[in-house]
């Protein structure tokens, strides 16, 4: 059990992580020497591309364990990591001009972003409570720093503070839950824990107790109700470019985190955590959708929308079936795609000294920039779950898994809250198309790179909606290969 001798073959599954770590350190050093920010920027982009290549070519199908079983490289991890690189890449492209205009285009941003990405990669591939925790903290600490990155901005600092305090509390809860489970099962390795729990634990009460702490900690990190309080404040307070980042890739890591703990580690206790997730999911759908209606700040509105989307994603996991896990993964990926596009547009419109913060700033965008308005409208319809956009299939597949697992009432609840949710997405479309623009709306200058990527992002939402088979099949396949 304690055969912890490292061999070179141990390093192979972790190659992408090692590569990102080395590059992040290199960029950190280089940035001190060189005054060329563009160089750091380009290197960061290249790092992500390189990591993607490494992950892609090392994908073998069957799960590969390393470091004495603490680390796993399976298909689910590969797919999620690739999506994570993609999201981080898009964040960099979307926020280049935004950061430059505000004097934030600094090496620290790139390094922190890379470390956060590394943290997510570790979380995605962890097969051990400690590794999970290390990955999570790496991500969280980088994010705290990123939120406070605009140092002189009082609101951002406050948001970072709030994020840090609540995040630390959540980490504490997680650690507490982990230690209870360790005491109960004698292992921190997820596979072994599942086997031990399956055989039956001495004190089922203690198992539930530990689970409550774990699920509460997960709830914080996912940002689902009733542990969602930090989400709106952080989303609103952070610089838009950082909100864009927080709102995208970490959701994939949070999904993987939940899957690793609850499914890989505690699948035998599924009956215990299903109920907890059901309560969290319903509360998130209710609070997220209802509170979003009242918002006038778009970042805050999208924060509440995130809460409801994460609740919807939980519905798939709590169905407790293989199909449910696969479609949750599909949902997470689709959500990240939509979230990237939406926040990307918010960032894009915040240029020339203008902050696109309030919903009113989007008034009559169709008359100023019809193409951007069309992209935003497509993203909104997709988030609302309307066909023919991919958001519809994400919702449909989760509902299908729920009904298939016999949770008809939950499906009905989810559907009713989707209707409420549709209202505020429609309101955004109304603002884009039916209202007339402010006279002082800024002239948008061209940013060919982010405009092109935004277009691809928006069109992907439509095209994946017309042909969703590929992505769904990929998720199901990845889940199949990982859970055999």
């Amino acid at each position, binding site marked *: 059990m304690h055969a912890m001798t490292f061999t070179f073959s141990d390093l192979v599954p972790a190659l992408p992580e090692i590569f990102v770590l080395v590059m992040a350190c290199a960029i950190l050093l280089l940035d001190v020497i060189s005054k060329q920010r563009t160089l750091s920027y380009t290197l960061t982009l290249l790092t992500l591309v390189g990591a993607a290549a490494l992950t892609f070519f090392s994908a073998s199908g069957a799960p590969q364990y390393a470091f004495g079983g603490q680390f796993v490289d399976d298909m689910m991890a590969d797919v999620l990591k690739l999506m994570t690189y993609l999201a981080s890449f898009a964040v960099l492209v979307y926020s280049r001009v935004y950061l430059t205009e505000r004097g934030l285009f600094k090496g620290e941003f790139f390094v922190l972003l890379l470390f956060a990405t590394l943290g997510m990669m570790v979380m995605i591939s962890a097969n051990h409570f400690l590794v999970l925790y290390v990955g999570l903290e790496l991500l969280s600490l980088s994010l705290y720093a990123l939120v406070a990155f605009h140092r002189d901005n009082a609101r951002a600092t406050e948001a970072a503070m709030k994020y840090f305090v609540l995040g630390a509390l959540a980490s504490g809860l997680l650690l507490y839950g982990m230690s209870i489970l360790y005491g109960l099962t004698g292992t921190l390795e997820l596979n072994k824990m599942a086997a031990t729990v399956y055989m039956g634990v001495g004190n089922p009460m203690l198992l539930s107790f530990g689970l409550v702490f774990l699920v509460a900690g997960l709830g914080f990190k996912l940002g689902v109700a009733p542990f969602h309080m930090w989400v709106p404040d952080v989303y609103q307070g952070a610089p838009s470019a950082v909100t864009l980042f927080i709102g995208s890739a970490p959701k994939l890591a949070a999904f993987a985190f939940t899957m690793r703990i609850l499914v890989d580690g505690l699948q035998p206790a599924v009956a215990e955590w299903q109920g907890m997730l059901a309560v969290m999911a319903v509360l998130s759908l209710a609070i997220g959708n209802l509170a979003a209606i009242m918002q006038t700040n778009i970042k805050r509105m999208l924060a509440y929308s995130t809460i409801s989307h994460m609740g919807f994603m939980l519905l798939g996991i709590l169905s407790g079936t293989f199909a449910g896990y696969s479609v949750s993964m599909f949902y997470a990926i689709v959500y990240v795609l939509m979230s990237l596009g939406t926040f990307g547009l918010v960032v894009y419109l915040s240029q020339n000294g203008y902050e696109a913060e309030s919903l009113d700033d989007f008034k009559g965008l169709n008359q100023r920039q019809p193409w951007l308005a069309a992209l935003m409208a497509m993203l909104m319809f997709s988030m609302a779950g*309307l*066909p023919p956009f991919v958001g*519809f299939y994400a919702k*449909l597949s989760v509902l299908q898994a729920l009904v298939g697992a016999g949770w008809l009432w939950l499906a009905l609840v989810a*559907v009713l809250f989707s*209707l409420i949710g549709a209202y505020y997405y429609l309101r955004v479309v109304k603002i884009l198309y*039916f209202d007339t623009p402010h006279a002082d709306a800024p002239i948008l200058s061209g940013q060919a790179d982010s405009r092109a990527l935004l277009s691809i992002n928006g069109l992907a939402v439509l095209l994946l909606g017309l042909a969703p088979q590929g992505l769904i099949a990929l998720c199901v396949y990845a889940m199949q290969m990982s859970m055999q």
Partner: protein
Amino acid sequence: MTEGLGIGVLSLAIWVPILVGVLILITGGDKNAEGQRTLALLGSLLGFAVAIPLWTDFDAGTAAMQFEELARWVPMFKINYHLGVDGISMPFILLNSFTTILVVLAGWQVIKERVGQYMAAFLIQSGLINGVFSALDGILFYVYFEAMLIPLYLIIGMWGGQNRVYAAIKFFLYTLLGSLLMLVSLLYLFFQSGGSFEILTWHRLPLAMTAQILLFVAFFFAFAVKVPMWPVHTWLPDAHVEAPTGGSVVLAAITLKVGAYGFLRFAMPIAPDASHYLAGFMVTLSLIAVVYIGLVALVQSDMKKLIAYSSIAHMGFVTLGFFIFEQMGIEGGLIQMISHGFISAAMFLCVGVMYDRVHSRQIADYGGVANKMPMFAAFFMLFAMANAGLPGTSGFVGEFMVILATVKVNFWWAFLATTTLIFGAAYTLWMYKRVVFGPVGNAHVEEMRDINGREFIVLALLAVCVLAMGLYPLPLTEVMHASVDNLLAHLSHSKLVP
């Protein structure tokens, strides 16, 4: 079952308008308005032309689905791209493609801002509605059914009247509520049928009575809102009043029919026992629509609102015809649907013609229009008479068939339904009298010019349709006969789980 290589007629009918719509959007902003109009007209004509084989090559002798196309779309969820039409759905595709031409023509001069987006929205909408009528896969149907809300939402909100935002959002949310409940029932049926989204498989699926009733209720919410039946009709007057003329035409002529069609394709054949069980309820709602809404129409002072209420009353006839389970009733209902498609389109276009000149929908702002617009007054007269159900026009045929069928079932139902002939005549002709006859009401009317060539073509086309259908409806009933027979035979067998 043809699984041919080429693109089928139905696919063309769906995708030609959509692609032309996208093309118009690509051609850019308002600089190119004239070109966009022309492109839209060509697109709508082409869309109608590709749909014509549906009529000419249709085999009226069979109730089976024709022009079928089947391809796997999302195999992971067993969703198929499955299209096909029978005698019930085929006429609506033609009606829709035809109406699109009228709508493009109607917006020709009136719409001056964002012309390309306006035209594109209508063309895309037209393709999506063709999809609704030809989908044989539950999810495919749902995709079209929902997606068609988007263009209409934008049309009402962008080119509508004063209170357009309220109307657009109300319209959207109302219809979305119903369809989301339907989505859950589609998923339920998927699992009950052992993993199939095929509508025709669902028709044969045995179901317990409780399940049937719940399904029927879910479908009822989806489709009754669209029809709209009393008491879920309140979105319609708002939407109609605020929508631009083209939007009102499409709403009245086509989207209302989607609701009624849904009853025939989903609710009744999937849950036949529940349909029989709840028939009294449905008939009651229909009669309330006919009588009560007819009276409501009488007191309207806004012409568009009046026509909107009259639409609800006429659609009450349709659902009445369906739920008496008589061949003549269902056929009458279908005829009434198509006839109402022509008449309501014509009525809204007539109001649009006047609105373009005076910019008012209030009856009180008119009077003596006949003095200034004699040609228009003649057309308007014809359509008003048709709306009142005058024999010789298409409005008479459907209503008469439904009443005849209802007498067989229950005299008092028929008695109540017949009041429509009085109320319908009352509200339509009274409005006509106040608007068209009498001395010239005010300076605005004094300045009105008679219809131009474009408006003449639009109204003349509709007049021909209304008269042709009224005088010789046989070809249409012949097309429907086999399918309606089949449906009734299907409905007469219980599907209860033994």
